[in-house]
């Protein structure tokens, strides 16, 4: 509680510093800072969000249903995020790009750090090595807060399921008992410490590896080999497996982007596999496979985006306790969202997103149910540019969860201030 109070105070300070003094904000840089003859470019972004769950007995409580949590102690609706990005050009062929980030004034994390190589300057072909942008999907590469018209994130990229790479349920019944507790889940096999599960595809960490990208007319093709998977990116590999991801994007006309993505890689850590199966077992078919399709169309004052992601996790079957059933099928999940933004007048827009996340059924000893509780989210809101690079967003978000042990309905009112240069 003390930590939350402290965070709220810091949040209030940032909001005051940015909003209460537009004159002060004008003194802040409005363009990226360049030096060394333009070879080094630095930009930044500060984002302060405060959201309230609307409950009959408490009009501004924190997210009791953990709908917007991104780890066990961190809600996307109550955060101060400070980003710093830099590009260092080392000649026509090499650029080093990095982004560091701190959330709620915790440790500074390297969100991205990679070398971009352009072997032939006249050809649209690049190789990127390091902690690289996600190949899969569309949303996770929207790194800047004003790329997201609303405050909340799409469920596929943020909502924490009950799947963990380092801990495994002993049976279908144990998994079903944990429905909706993805923000802090504990299982009987593997790491006994309760921590958060993974989203379908994370927007908050990038993977480490090698990526190639080519543009051929209206077709953009990307492929990568990385240490983790789309739901569990890694810097240090935990299972000696590599994920392969591809993306093909078509831009047949102005304003239209259609993309399809695929990713597959070993998901479960070696330690968890050994805990489940015993011996020196490593690797194996305990993978995450993901398919995605996305579409964007924009024209005039509106932008419409839609994205569907299907994924399947294959978990090792541990020794099942008596009178319980094993997990024999992959755990599938399907998420689809559609969002739109429309500008009403200069500096003012409205936006909405409708989002659903569903899970495949599994059979337990007492019931057959989706292995995690399905969630539907609707969010409406808007943004107003106090200055070109200072945006105030407001949103209303409604969440409905079908089952599980936690709160099944929650509505939020949120405000977010974004400053960037």
């Amino acid at each position, binding site marked *: 509680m003390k930590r939350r109070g402290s965070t709220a105070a810091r949040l209030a300070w940032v909001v005051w510093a940015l909003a209460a003094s537009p004159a002060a904000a004008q003194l802040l840089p409005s363009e990226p800072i360049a030096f060394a003859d333009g070879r080094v470019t630095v930009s930044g972004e500060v984002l302060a969000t405060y959201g309230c769950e609307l409950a009959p007995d408490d009009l501004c409580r924190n997210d009791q249903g953990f709908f917007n949590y991104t780890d066990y102690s961190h809600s996307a609706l109550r955060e101060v995020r400070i980003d710093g990005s830099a590009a260092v050009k080392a000649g026509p062929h090499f650029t080093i790009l990095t982004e560091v980030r701190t959330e709620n004034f915790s440790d500074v994390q390297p969100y991205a750090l990679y070398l971009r190589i352009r072997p032939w300057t006249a050809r649209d072909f690049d190789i990127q090595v390091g902690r690289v942008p996600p190949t899969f999907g569309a949303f996770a590469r929207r790194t800047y807060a004003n790329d997201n018209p609303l405050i909340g994130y799409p469920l596929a990229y943020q909502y924490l399921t009950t799947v963990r790479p380092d801990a495994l349920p002993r049976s279908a019944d144990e998994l079903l008992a944990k429905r909706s507790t993805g923000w802090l889940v504990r299982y009987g096999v593997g790491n006994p410490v309760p921590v958060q599960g993974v989203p379908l595809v994370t927007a908050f960490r990038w993977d480490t590896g090698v990526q190639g990208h080519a543009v051929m007319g209206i077709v953009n093709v990307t492929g990568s080999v990385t240490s983790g998977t789309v739901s569990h990116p890694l810097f240090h590999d935990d299972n000696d497996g590599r994920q392969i991801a591809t993306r093909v994007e078509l831009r047949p006309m102005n304003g239209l982007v259609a993309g399809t993505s695929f990713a597959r890689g070993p998901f479960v850590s070696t330690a968890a596999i050994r805990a489940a199966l015993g011996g020196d077992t490593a690797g194996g078919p305990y993978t995450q496979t993901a398919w995605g399709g996305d579409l964007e169309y924009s024209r005039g004052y509106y932008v419409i985006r839609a994205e569907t992601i299907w994924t399947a996790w294959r978990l090792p079957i541990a020794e099942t306790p008596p009178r319980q059933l094993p997990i024999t099928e992959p755990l599938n999940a399907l998420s689809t969202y559609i969002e739109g933004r429309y500008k009403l007048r200069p500096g003012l827009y409205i936006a909405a997103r409708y989002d659903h996340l569903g899970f495949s059924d599994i059979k337990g000893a007492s019931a057959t149910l989706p292995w995690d509780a399905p969630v539907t989210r609707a969010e409406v809101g808007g943004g107003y540019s106090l200055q*070109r690079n200072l945006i105030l967003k407001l949103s209303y978000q409604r969440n409905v969860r079908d089952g599980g042990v936690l709160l099944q309905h929650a509505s939020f009112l949120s405000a977010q201030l974004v400053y960037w240069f």
Partner: protein
Amino acid sequence: MAAIVTRSQRKEQRTQSAAAPCAALGGLLSLLAFASFVALVSLSPARSAFAARSAAASSQTRSAAAARPGAIRGRVELRRVVSAAERRPTVGDLGTPAARDLPDLLRSVVYLESAPRGAFETNEGGHAVMDQRNETFVPHVLAITTGTTVDFPNSDKFYHNVFSLSKPRTFDLGRYAAGHTRDVRFDRPGIVRVFCEIHSHMNAFILVFSHPFFALTDAEGRYQIDNVPPGTYGVIAWNEGTPSETKSVTVPDGGTGELDFTIR
């Protein structure tokens, strides 16, 4: 090119109005334009000194209407390094972004701080063009009179979204494709900063004057303001948001006043 077109149109308009008798209606409109101009300036303290200066009515010039107009010319020297806005680091991109042109930041605008009598006659306005080419606004600086309509064609293969949140004129033209154009009419004097919503490094300036006594410098920094009635004037040079100190110059009857500037 755009500024030249506009200036020639203005010259034509001035010639027409000089030939016409000094009708009571014209005088009334001038008075109204002047009064509303002063009111706007006084109501908007945040407006730049540029607008206030350009708006102030001249009490300096009392030369006879029959006096021959002259010119002010000189050179603006830039003793500072101004860099074009850089692209934000493309950390989230899957590859190198396409090459872009860099804007010409060496052009300055020189203008009379106080306009001579008759400067606020109604102006039907002409057309000027600010192109969007290789992720750059061309020209980077446009100087126009109130009433001018600026066309914003898109000459790139991809979308742009021109907008401004500047107080003299807020607008948002939305996303439109290559070969299409949208336009905006500017009716209030001041400095309008223009941006592209999609490409944050694209920016430009439109300086809107309520009088016609201004000029853009050429590539060497030279300028000439023509058709200035004889008299003594305060003159300001402006470059990339930085105005010089006001300098005084006297325009002799039918002659030319010389005035150089240094902007640091």
